[in-house]
């Protein structure tokens, strides 16, 4: 059982090597899909067998790796990690399914995505700082090439911006990691990168403050929090559809995951001290980027801004120091993963068919692609937190919990929810309805527009069914997540 987790993490990497060696298009596609499905099933099995009543990490494996530096291969999952692993493995199945018709250098494309999957699964499972950083940085190279090689017009600019921003954040994260490891060494004479070893320390306030800021900068860039968010709209706009899906659904969660896994338990006093700062940044992100979203005419850029806004809700809930809010924040990570994936798939599909992301070029699409119109609507509703879908439960819990301790902040942030309904419905109207904007020329071109194909529908079903499941029957998921929240909040 313990080794199943490692198997799930490294199976995609193995697949990546196979794909790179064999270099057969069909083989690459179906092997990727097959491997990601097996990984999903393994994670599902682990999820179903997860003991949410027990404290701490489960399915742990620990093997000495670089003993002279106190580094070990140590993986394991708690409630938050297993939920994110489940979401991640599902999103990758969908990404591969969606990409079945990729024609441009498919072998490299699938090899990079498989490598990326290992990095993503690894980040959520690592219990050793070094291992964590290895996976954290491991996603950089595949994602860089995915944006740079398969992106749209300004792909090079976007890929570079993505790389430099993320690398900038990561180095500070590394410095933070190094500083607490060295502190542990000075205090105990034992050099160790082990997360659980460091969890038993209570660091002095000055170190907590410094390390919180160093870690925080790394996480903030990845989330991304305002004002270090500007790489995200560019990266999203230029990335290919599956790249955007993985970026929004999985990579952005690494930052918020980092806050819950590392910042809160390791630096509890500094976390409390910095609540006003984090709240300020979160609320600015929620409202400012929602307003930016309203101003967009490019659908992918709009969805990107909405992602930043939603991630603001996650950071708000994370630092509200309340069980419900933290549950909601973690729930939001999973829920946003699903809804943003569905939204980017919709946008990507529109681009594939119409070759434009601009609302002015799109009005009246609903008549020609009705299946997409329905699924796009559901995806959007999932995104804005419509009752019955996953986002609602998450937002409800976040605001409920935040309101208890910080009513004013909660109220201000709540405005963002209203704005999110505004920008989505406005966008939906302009893209799907407004038939009067269709010119004769466009009508002629669209008459034979092909609606969703089987692999698209299957992708949507997997995501949307999960969003409904999480929205209608949240109890078991909340229970699993709460296992982490209780522990993080010290109860």
């Amino acid at each position, binding site marked *: 059982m313990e080794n199943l987790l490692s198997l799930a993490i490294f199976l995609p990497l193995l697949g990546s090597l196979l794909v790179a060696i064999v270099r057969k298009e069909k083989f690459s596609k179906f092997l990727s899909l097959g491997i990601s499905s097996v990984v999903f099933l393994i994670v599902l099995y682990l999820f179903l067998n997860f003991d949410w009543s027990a404290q701490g990490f489960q399915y742990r494996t620990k093997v000495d790796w*670089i003993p*002279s530096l106190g580094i070990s291969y140590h993986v394991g999952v708690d409630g938050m990690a297993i939920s994110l692993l489940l979401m991640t493995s599902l999103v990758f199945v969908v990404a591969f399914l969606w990409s079945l018709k990729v024609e441009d250098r498919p072998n490299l494309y699938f090899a990079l995505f498989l490598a990326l999957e290992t990095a993503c699964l690894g980040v959520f499972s690592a219990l050793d700082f070094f291992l964590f950083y290895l996976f954290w*940085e491991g996603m950089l190279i595949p994602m860089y090439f995915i944006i740079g090689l398969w992106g749209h017009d300004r792909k090079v600019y976007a890929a*570079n911006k993505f*790389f430099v921003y993320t690398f900038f954040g990561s180095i500070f994260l590394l410095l933070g990691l190094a500083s607490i490891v*060295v502190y542990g060494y000075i205090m105990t004479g034992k050099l160790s990168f082990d997360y659980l070893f460091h969890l038993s320390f209570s660091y002095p306030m000055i170190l907590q403050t410094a390390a919180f800021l160093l870690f925080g900068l790394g996480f903030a860039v990845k989330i991304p929090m305002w004002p270090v968010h500007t790489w995200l709209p560019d990266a999203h706009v230029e990335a290919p559809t599956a790249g955007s899906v993985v970026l929004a659904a999985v990579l952005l969660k690494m930052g918020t995951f980092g806050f819950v896994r590392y910042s809160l338990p390791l630096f509890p006093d500094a976390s409390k001290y910095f609540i006003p700062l984090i709240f300020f940044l979160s609320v600015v992100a929620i409202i400012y980027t929602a307003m930016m979203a309203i101003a967009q005419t490019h659908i992918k850029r709009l969805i990107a801004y909405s992602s930043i806004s939603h991630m603001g809700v996650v950071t708000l809930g994370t630092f509200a120091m309340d069980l419900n809010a933290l549950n909601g924040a973690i729930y939001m990570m999973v829920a946003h993963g699903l809804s943003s994936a569905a939204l980017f798939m919709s946008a990507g599909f529109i681009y594939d068919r119409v070759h434009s992301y601009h609302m002015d070029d799109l009005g009246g699409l609903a008549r020609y692609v009705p299946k997409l119109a329905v699924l796009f609507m559901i995806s959007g509703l999932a995104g804005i937190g419509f009752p019955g879908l996953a986002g609602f439960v998450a937002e409800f819990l976040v605001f409920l919990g935040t309101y208890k301790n910080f009513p004013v902040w909660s109220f201000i942030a709540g405005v963002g929810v209203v704005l999110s309904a505004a920008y989505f419905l406005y966008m939906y109207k302009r893209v799907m309805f407004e038939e009067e904007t269709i010119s004769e020329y466009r009508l002629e071109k669209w008459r034979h527009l092909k609606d969703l194909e089987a692999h698209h529908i299957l992708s949507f079903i997997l995501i949307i069914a999960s969003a409904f499941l999480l929205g209608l029957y949240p109890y078991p998921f909340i229970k699993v997540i709460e296992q982490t929240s209780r522990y993080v909040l010290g109860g």
Partner: protein
Amino acid sequence: MNWNVLIPELVLSLGILLVFVLDLFSDKKHYRALSILSALVPIASLISLLFVQYPAKALFDLFEVNALNLLGKAVLYMLTSLVLFSMHDYYKKKDSVYTELSYLPLLSTLGLSILVSSKNLLLLFVSLELASIGMYVMVSLLRGDVLSKEAGYKYLIIGSVGTSMLALGSVFYYASTGTLFFREYRDENSLFMLSMLLLLSALALKASAVPYHFWTPDAYEGAPTPITGYLSSVPKVALYFLLVQLLGYFYHLKQWLVLVALLSLLSMFYANFVAYAQRSVKRLLAYSTIAHAGYFLLGISTVDPYLQKALLFYVSLYAFASLGAFTLLSVLEKKPGFSHHMLDYRGLFKEHPVLASLLALFLFAFIGIPPMALFVGKLGLFMGLVNTLLLPLALAFVVASIISAGYYLRVIVSMFLEEGEKRFPPTKVSGGEALTLLLCSLFVVLLGIFPHLLYDLIRI
């Protein structure tokens, strides 16, 4: 006389003599065989390391072997052998196959091998000169090429300044301590400090640290590319293995830290900024070497076992990555008309996916992206600096590393994400080059995943 201590150097010397004699009696058509034979000589020395009993001293205590400098020698021999394996085809394409090719790198390596074992300034001087003179000639070996000659000349002139500084430093050292042997000397008189300044400057010049770096970009650019690979890897490893051992005699001086920090900060920031202005990838990598000299010098800013272990790990792996990168450049240079201008690298990935991927791998390694082994080195340096509470230096290291990412990325962008305008004839990778590239990339990746294989061998 304890000959056992000198076995690797003796094997190397005999090998050089053998190659030299064979060279006298063989035709031009045998040069290929000769170059393979010369590449095997360092391997024989490498094997002979197993028979050295250490720790021990020889040559009236001028020469010392211990676990650390034997490891340094092992790395030196491996690198030299890889350089020799990779260079024959390049010279053939350049129509510049000369007899000296086979034994000059061996001579330099012999010098460097003695250098890491030096316990006395006299031996240090002689061995450094033996290494340097070989390198001056190697740099200017493309006789028909003006750039190569200019590079050799410049290297010779500036190198001589280094030699003078070393000589003067040795004189001051003798004047203050009464001996040329390295020994603990606690009296902080100004003569001793001056000798420290001059000795450090001379070694910093060889390590291409700012402000002694002026020869580096020109020599690197003008030298035959496999020789650039040699310059950027073999002497660097030897120097830092030596510096780590010398550190114990000087670090107690207050000025040591100030000087080293200054050299390192200047190198990191100057080189990382100037690298952005480069249009030639070969020159860009030369500036990257200068920046790395800055990173490496951080490792000798003060005595701390973690810091020095990390430094030696880092510099060894850097040497392999750097040799790999320059070998790749020399493979590409075999295309007629290929100039290393950034534009020539455009769209390389489409033409040569494997070569472009390997170069990207080495460049990512320079940035310090895991799982490449240079990341472990950078991490170790970070930790060492934080551990010794040199936080400003750690922070400067971080900032410099971030700055450097941009120019490496530009090369990667050119190769992968841009369309090529010029068309060059295809190039072939010779067996030797393939071996060098394969081993360098394997070391860089495998030792990133299993760093303890080397880390645990570095005993300080």
